């Protein structure tokens, strides 16, 4: 039961954190140069975005919950079940970031859900 709770927390906090980070990074525009100076400027601009800090906070919470899970269960269980993030990602990408999620992507998301159920049952 505690494992299910921590999986839920990892998925919810992790996915919302990543969505906040995605929103911040899309806000600063596409990276076209990979020189160290240019990357440092991108990181600097990213850290000036409030969404980035909200995202990092949620990701820190997710990371703590992941540490607890990994201390109790095998990685071959923990990592596949956290793939439940796909469901959250597709829903969040569609409704929070306004991205288009096409039919084949929804089918992929359903397959991932089925796979997670099998991993849990195994």
């Amino acid at each position: 039961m505690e494992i299910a709770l921590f999986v839920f927390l990892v998925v919810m906090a992790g996915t919302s954190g990543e969505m906040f980070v995605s929103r911040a990074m899309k806000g600063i525009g596409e990276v076209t140069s990979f020189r160290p100076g240019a990357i440092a400027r991108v990181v600097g601009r990213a850290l000036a975005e409030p969404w980035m800090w909200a995202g990092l906070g949620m990701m820190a919470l997710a990371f703590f919950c992941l540490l607890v899970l990994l201390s109790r269960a095998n990685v071959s269980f923990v990592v596949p079940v956290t793939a439940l993030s796909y469901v959250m990602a597709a829903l969040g990408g569609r409704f929070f970031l306004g991205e288009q999620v096409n039919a084949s992507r929804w089918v992929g998301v359903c397959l991932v859900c089925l796979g997670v159920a099998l991993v849990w049952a195994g």
Partner: protein
Amino acid sequence: METGQHLRGKTAVLLLLMVAFGSSGDTLMGKGMRAVGPPAEWSAARVGEFLSQAALSPIVWAGFGCLLLFFVSYMLVLTWADFSFVLPASAAAYAVVPLLGHFFLGEAVSPLRWAGVVTITLGVGLVGNTPPRTTLPVVEGTQRATAAAAAAAGTAKGD
């Protein structure tokens, strides 16, 4: 102006780095945290002890380093690719980690669990086979705006 092929190539390289760093990071973290063990109870003292023991483990730090490199690649790719494209596509690591867990950490994985892992991989493959960007990029000047509009028109024609 960037061609679709260039965008796909750049995306593929960064996704590959994400899978490599992400899966080795998760596996190392798992090995380190199993050695630490869960907090004995949910008190501040025990949770603090749990975190400090994790922070003293070199294996946990090695895993953490890999995950940081994963995160840097991830932030870079997110500046041009859609979130709902990047997260599932990068998560081929979700299939690689059980293999690493089984062969390097000696974890027992039942046939049903392998079936689940394969199903997840199929789902990931299906999700990854979509265009990397469905929203218009943020542009700074009129020149780039024109380029973006031309690129968008090209994409629309391609579809």
